[in-house]
């Protein structure tokens, strides 16, 4: 422990000293244009390069993430214009029945789909694969029917194609009115959650721009994730909605970490504080991504898979939105504050 700690801190200390020298030379002694030129000769070492890049280009980086957000909003807008909804609603959100035969590894899905279509031409029936680690475990049938008799007809039809030992099944039926009201409700809940969250964030930092940046980051995470979820054609279920809410929690964690480091602390330069926070924040996101990926690969549950997929997409966006967008906003904010002083 001793060796690790001291060498680490010594290195950190050295870097700090170097950067201090750097910045004092650049900002105090030399005119600004020259600074840029001189800095372009580029410091060595990845972290230093990254810090340098950040300081030089943070304003451009905001454009990148804002563009990402705008593209996502446009994509969602197009989605709303063409389908009337901003996500692909799964059966549990629009009403219908999901029948899961959890143990049918050999059933040919395409053939079953054709058979079902031929036998039930009036109903919209869709067959999916239930799988874990790339192996088919069973099948999932989505249909819009909700009447017990209609469901039983389909269940019996599939049952006959399976050996007796594989006939276990689960049925989930959601009435369309509840599906719709649930969707609206969770949407409202999400808006309220956002408002509450904004209040808490504002109370923590007591300044408008940094708090706004935190909220913007959480908002961007969700919007961009929705856009990607739409692009990959995922049909979102009630559990998927929960995943979006989980995303709020995870994305705010790193933002609060970053904002606290930048505006509540005074040691080092802004960029140093950002990078200190980043070291912790990356680890937080990385552990989450690791756990989520494990869930995604090994889960045999369709619902868990969906939650994990949404979380994974969201966490990846969170890296960009926190460490590029939010960091850049904070940097601009701090620089401006310094200039004012």
């Amino acid at each position, binding site marked *: 422990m001793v060796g690790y700690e001291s060498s680490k801190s010594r290195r950190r200390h050295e870097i700090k000293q170097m950067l201090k020298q750097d910045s004092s030379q650049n900002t105090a002694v030399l005119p600004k244009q020259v600074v840029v030129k001189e800095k372009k000769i580029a410091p060595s070492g990845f972290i230093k390069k990254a810090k340098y890049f950040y300081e030089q280009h943070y304003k451009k980086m905001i454009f990148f993430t804002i563009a990402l957000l705008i593209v996502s909003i446009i994509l969602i807008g197009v989605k709303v214009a063409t389908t009337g909804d901003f996500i692909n609603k799964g059966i549990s959100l629009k009403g219908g029945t999901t029948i899961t035969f959890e143990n049918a590894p050999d059933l040919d899905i395409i053939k079953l789909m054709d058979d079902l279509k031929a036998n039930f031409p009036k109903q919209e029936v869709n067959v999916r694969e239930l799988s874990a680690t790339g192996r088919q475990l069973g099948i999932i049938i989505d249909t819009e029917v909700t009447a017990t008799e209609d469901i039983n007809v389909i269940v019996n039809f599939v049952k006959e194609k399976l050996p007796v030992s594989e006939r276990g099944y689960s049925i989930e039926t959601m009435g369309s009115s509840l599906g719709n009201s649930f969707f609206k409700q969770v949407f409202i809940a999400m808006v309220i959650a956002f408002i*509450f969250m904004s209040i808490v964030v504002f109370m923590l930092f007591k300044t408008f721009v940094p708090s706004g940046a935190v909220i913007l980051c959480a908002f961007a995470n969700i919007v961009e994730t929705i856009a990607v979820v739409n692009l990959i054609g995922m049909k979102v279920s009630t559990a998927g909605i929960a995943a979006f809410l989980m995303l709020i*929690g995870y994305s705010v964690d790193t933002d609060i970490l970053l904002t606290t480091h930048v505006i509540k602390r005074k040691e080092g330069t802004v960029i140093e504080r950002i990078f200190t926070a980043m070291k912790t924040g990356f680890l937080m996101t990385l*552990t989450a991504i690791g756990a989520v990926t494990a869930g995604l690969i090994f889960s045999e549950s369709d619902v868990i898979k969906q939650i994990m997929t949404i979380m994974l997409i969201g966490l990846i966006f969170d890296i960009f939105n926190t460490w590029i967008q939010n960091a850049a906003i904070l940097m601009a904010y701090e620089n401006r504050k310094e200039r004012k002083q």
Partner: protein
Amino acid sequence: MSKAKKLFTNTRVIILLVFLVLSIVAIHPRFIEGVAIRSVGINSSAQIAGITNPKANIAPTSREVITTVGTTPIKTIEDYAKATSNLTADTTLVVETNKNTYRLTVKPKIKTVVLPELENVTVKEIRLINVTVNGTTKAVNQTFENIVLRNKTITEIVGVEDIGLKVFDAPTTNLRKGLDLQGGTRVLLQPERTITSSESELIIDNMKQRLNVYGLSDVVVTEAGDLTGNKYFLVEVAGANEEEVKELLAKQGKFEASIKEAVVFRGGGDITYVCRTPECSGIDPQVGCGQTSDGQYSCRFRFSISLMPEAAQKQADATKDLAVISYDSNGNILPEENQYLNQTIDFYLDNAKVDSLNIGKDLKGKAVTDIQISGGGIGATEPEAANDALKNMKRLQTILITGSLPVKINIVKTDIISPVLGKGFLKNTMLILLIAVIVVGAILGIRYRKLQITLQIMFNMAAELLMMLGIGALIGWNIDLAAIAGIIVAIGTGVNDVVVITDEVLSGGGANEPTGLTWKEKVKRAFFIVMGAYLTIVVAMIPLYFAGAGLLRGFAITTILGATFGILITRPAYASIAEIMLKE
């Protein structure tokens, strides 16, 4: 002071340890083999032998566990199924549980077989006749005999009746597995109009009673709401695919018997007794089953009930002015005892006619308290029809006993989860949890390059999981999919928080760094971030608790509870442990 001594004398660490011990006590892990009793069938040999239905909210490890059936030791459900599969009628079966030993008498199962050949049989028709005994008039069933040509039937013992126990693998902890983990039926119902809180209490009680009378004891009925003030009722029946439950719950249960539009009695208050024993309920032995013109089979059921005197009087009033029909359709005069009134008595359930019966001439104007209710069932085969009839009978009996709901309610969502899927899901969840912990541990190991820190964070994760499960066992909440999602969030944020604390206290390496912060100040700084993250997640979850018919309520509660215990107990303890272990 040695590190170990410091650790175990630290208040925060002691608090954590106390909570961990309490959690283990609440979870009550035990090693047990056998099958736990989920429910006992009404009038089954098990019930007759004295085995009682477990209470609905009993702690899982307090359930009675069957250890031996006959001479076979029972370890799994398969053992139980095997041990009860080859029973002989009218023999004694000894069932040993962890609480008692019961002697069950196995009942024979009798079946009526309809043969192809025809025979002349005397078919009895039951009509209510008033008999005056010691000056009081009482209606009794009197049987009239008609001779008709019918299929020959024989009754035979076809096997044994189920002993009436529903069982599941004995729980090894007090954790209540939700439906997603153990299989079962979940029904979400919505009343058609807004209801008052007293009405909603009435509905919950009635539904519970209905399910209990129906023979399901392991049920949970709760109320749920949403942000716009809609009310819902959530009914969960554990461990079984009970599709009939849907039918039973969706009925408002408004039962009416009327003669010529006048209601003579209603279900619930007007009825004092509903017979459910085989002697006075079941497939009508006089009518039995038969094939209808369209090739289907139909069976008739009947059971007797007793009415309040007021209801009987109403019936007397309704029949006193009716005309007597004394000729059959061919114009032949009917024998006196076969004559009937010109109006039928009609039974309606939720405004749909269930059955219509002739009223015997003798009942005209008489206040009868004991009467017979009948109805039918249909099916593609005779057993199917008989089954359908019995199912309808059971439902009608249940509804007559429990009365009607104050408002019509509709099913808005049903989940029928197969127990196999549930079991697999639990196994899979554990696997994922284990892999996720390993992955997180590996990432932390790579980052910190110190086994001690990694182990400490993993201990923190385990402690949080244990505490959440402990609270779950204590307050008796069901660990279902939503709760698992909540646990994942809480543990995930827990890892985030301890990473923040670790990085913060390690910053600068010690108190002698240029920043000059003491250990305490560093922890305080870390807790500002931890607290901020905690508050945001809690406020984000609060609206979810109230939204959307409570479908995500479990998720919200688990997340909030997990995060709260995390911030109050495990994270302060973590900071203390980190200080003791890492401070040089």
